[in-house]
């Protein structure tokens, strides 16, 4: 078991190291083969680990890092069922994405760099998923942040793309700072950073400390998972290649925040206030993302805002203490959203880099294979009854509805509204980009893309469409995921609700989904012109001016202060001051230089003169005595 888990993490790391060190001696095919083999190996190990688990939760000691003054950094694996599911999802999705990338990056010259960082990312993500010691979780956390930064700015010669990478890096650091503070507090209270240790001793926490820790962890998750108010980096992160968006900014990294909260859920549940904040942040972000996605014209930005909104649902699930629902939605979202991003990548390549959905059209006729896959993704995202995200979102909304307190009803209403908007924007995207229309693209405008790129998506599409089977609310295999995750602390197998509530929710959300779809059909079926950005549309398009707000309120004053410190204080004060002092000494020594004539006779004369003066002084002092 130890070997399996070690290999699970080491395979991607070795792939990255091999490509980094020896990549230039390999052919392009060789580089891709190394990367894919590493991730497929990790997938095999994840399956093996899952099948082999006999005990429910195992802490496996891999190696010791260091130990200082009572603090021990031990690399343990805390392998419970949550970690098992997460590791399996990460390796499966990244395997598909690695295979897809082989075709997608077929003409890119930075292929070694690309696969190296992609493998490194998988490694860091697996560390987050598996590590027991929070210091290692933090290392993985920073590792995925770094990989996200380099992969967003992968085409770094484009200034805008490099800036998008920087922005993502800086904004997620704001969240990471809170994680760092939380680590300090954990060590102060528990004298250990091991998750299993902490979870077993939550009774040490007072309500105030638990709330503080919960809020710090929430803030960390908000940064990583692109939630309000730190979400502005994710839409810009779409500057990276599409498979990167699929892997990092849809399936795995952005859900790391939610995963962290699930992992440390026993702390969160101690504090009703922290839970409430989590639920509120999640719901508001879900609504925010749906509204913003409704008016975007860039296909990847629609999907990015949709990701923000869907991760909001997962946070809502954690906030209403249903981590099974959250994990369920995390899984189905990972499948259908990476499917959507990868299909979007096919479309973008077939249209020579076109991102604007208003300049697409007719895709269904000319790209039938890809549009079928995209439709599958859309049905899942739009929670079409009985497919994909339907069961998971339903479960979250049901858990919200039956959660105690008046607030949860309000959150439920907002969640339902966001669900309707989700269906609406999803099918808006589908109808505008894929429906036949006279001014759409002609047959000869499409470039040939490798068939492999769409073939490799079919397993993903199948899992996305039928992942509801994982946790059916009834019948054969009822609540499989719920029972599997029952051993995770704080989880509930089934949401306790009356039959009326359950059926009302099922029919209600199905109706909302279909309603959104039909409305989208009538609203955007024939739409082909990009509407002008005015009024409300502009507000939504810019993401409620949040970006501009940060720019004006934080970035610009900061730049001004930095400029002041730089030009006035550093250059004007310190630099010029020391230059002036140096100049003064230089002038003084210029004067002193004149004394050294270099004439030996003068020196001798002066020597005797000085000697005589000294003697005179000496005799004078004797005389006075």
């Amino acid at each position, binding site marked *: 078991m130890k070997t399996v888990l070690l290999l699970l993490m080491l395979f991607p790391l070795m792939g990255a190291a091999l490509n980094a060190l020896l990549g230039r001696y390999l052919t392009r095919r060789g580089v891709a083969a190394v990367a894919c083999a590493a991730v497929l190996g990790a997938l095999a190990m994840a399956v093996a680990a899952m099948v082999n688990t006999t005990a429910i939760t195992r802490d496996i000691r891999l190696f010791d890092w260091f130990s200082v003054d009572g603090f021990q950094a031990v690399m343990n694996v805390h392998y419970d069922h949550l970690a098992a599911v997460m590791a399996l999802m990460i390796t499966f999705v990244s395997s598909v994405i690695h295979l897809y990338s082989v075709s997608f990056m077929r003409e890119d010259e930075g292929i070694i760099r690309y696969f190296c960082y992609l493998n490194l990312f998988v490694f860091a993500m697996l560390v987050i998923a598996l590590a027991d010691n929070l210091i290692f979780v933090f290392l993985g956390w920073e590792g995925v942040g770094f990989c996200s930064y380099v992969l967003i700015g992968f085409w770094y010669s484009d200034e805008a793309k490099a800036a998008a990478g920087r922005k993502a890096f800086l904004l997620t650091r704001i969240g990471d700072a809170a994680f760092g503070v939380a680590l300090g507090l954990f060590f102060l209270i528990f004298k250990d950073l091991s998750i299993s240790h902490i979870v077993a001793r939550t009774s040490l926490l007072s309500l105030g400390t638990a709330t503080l820790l919960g809020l710090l962890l929430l803030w960390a998750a908000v940064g990583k998972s692109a939630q309000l108010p730190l979400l502005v980096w994710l839409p810009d992160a779409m500057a990276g290649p599409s498979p990167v968006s699929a892997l990092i900014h849809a399936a795995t990294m952005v859900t790391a925040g939610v995963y962290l909260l699930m992992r440390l859920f026993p702390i969160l549940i101690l504090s009703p206030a922290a839970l409430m904040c989590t639920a509120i942040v999640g719901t508001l972000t879900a609504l925010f993302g749906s509204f913003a996605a409704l008016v975007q014209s860039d296909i990847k930005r629609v999907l990015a805002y949709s990701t923000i909104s869907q991760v909001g649902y997962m946070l809502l699930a954690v906030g209403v203490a249903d981590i099974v629902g959250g994990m369920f939605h995390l899984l189905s979202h990972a499948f259908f959203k990476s499917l959507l991003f990868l299909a979007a990548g096919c479309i973008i390549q077939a249209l020579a880099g076109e991102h604007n959905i208003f300049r697409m059209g007719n895709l269904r006729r000319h790209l039938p294979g890809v549009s079928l896959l995209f439709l599958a993704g859309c049905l899942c995202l739009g929670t079409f009854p009985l497919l994909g995200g339907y069961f998971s979102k339903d479960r979250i909304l049901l858990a919200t509805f039956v959660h105690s307190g008046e607030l949860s009803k309000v959150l439920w209403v907002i969640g339902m509204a966001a669900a309707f908007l989700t269906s609406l924007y999803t099918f808006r995207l589908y109808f505008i980009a894929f429906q036949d229309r006279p001014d759409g693209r002609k047959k000869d405008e499409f470039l040939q893309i490798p068939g492999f790129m769409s073939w490799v998506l079919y397993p993903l599409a199948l899992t996305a469409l039928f992942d509801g089977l994982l946790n059916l609310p009834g019948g054969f295999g009822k609540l499989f995921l719920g029972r599997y995750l029952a051993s995770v602390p704080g989880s509930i197998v089934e949401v306790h609700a009356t039959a009326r509530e359950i059926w009302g929710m099922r029919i209600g959300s199905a109706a909302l989904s279909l309603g959104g779809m039909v409305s989208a059909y009538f609203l955007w079926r024939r739409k082909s012109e990009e509407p002008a950005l005015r009024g409300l549309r502009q507000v939504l398009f810019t993401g409620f001016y949040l970006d501009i707000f940060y720019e004006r309120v934080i970035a610009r004053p900061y730049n001004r202060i930095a400029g002041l410190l730089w030009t006035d204080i550093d250059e004007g004060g310190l630099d010029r001051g020391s230059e002036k002092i140096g100049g003064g000494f230089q002038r003084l020594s210029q004067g002193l230089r004149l004394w050294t004539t*270099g*004439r*030996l*006779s003068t020196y001798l004369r002066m020597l005797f003169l000085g000697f005589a003066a000294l003697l005179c002084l000496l005799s004078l002092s004797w005389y006075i005595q």
Partner: protein
Amino acid sequence: MIVPYDHILILAVLLFLTGAACVVARRTLIMILIGVEIMLNAAGIALVGGSLKWGVLGGQVFVIFIMAVAAAEVAVGLALIVHSHRRSGSVEADHYHLMKG
């Protein structure tokens, strides 16, 4: 002691001043070196006189040291003067002003 100590000191001072005047007034390196020798000998006479007056042997020992040092100094000094004369063709002290600031 036949000669009074005062006389010895006066002789020493006169010799020393002569040497100093030689060092200051003459511009040739050889003459400066001779001046230094005279000054050293003046100091030596004062030390020998003192040693006789107080009956302490230290003064005479010192003089022997001074003589040894002076011999060595003359040897090195003359060699240097010969070398610099070969290099620049002059033994004038003021001719050498590489140290001018």
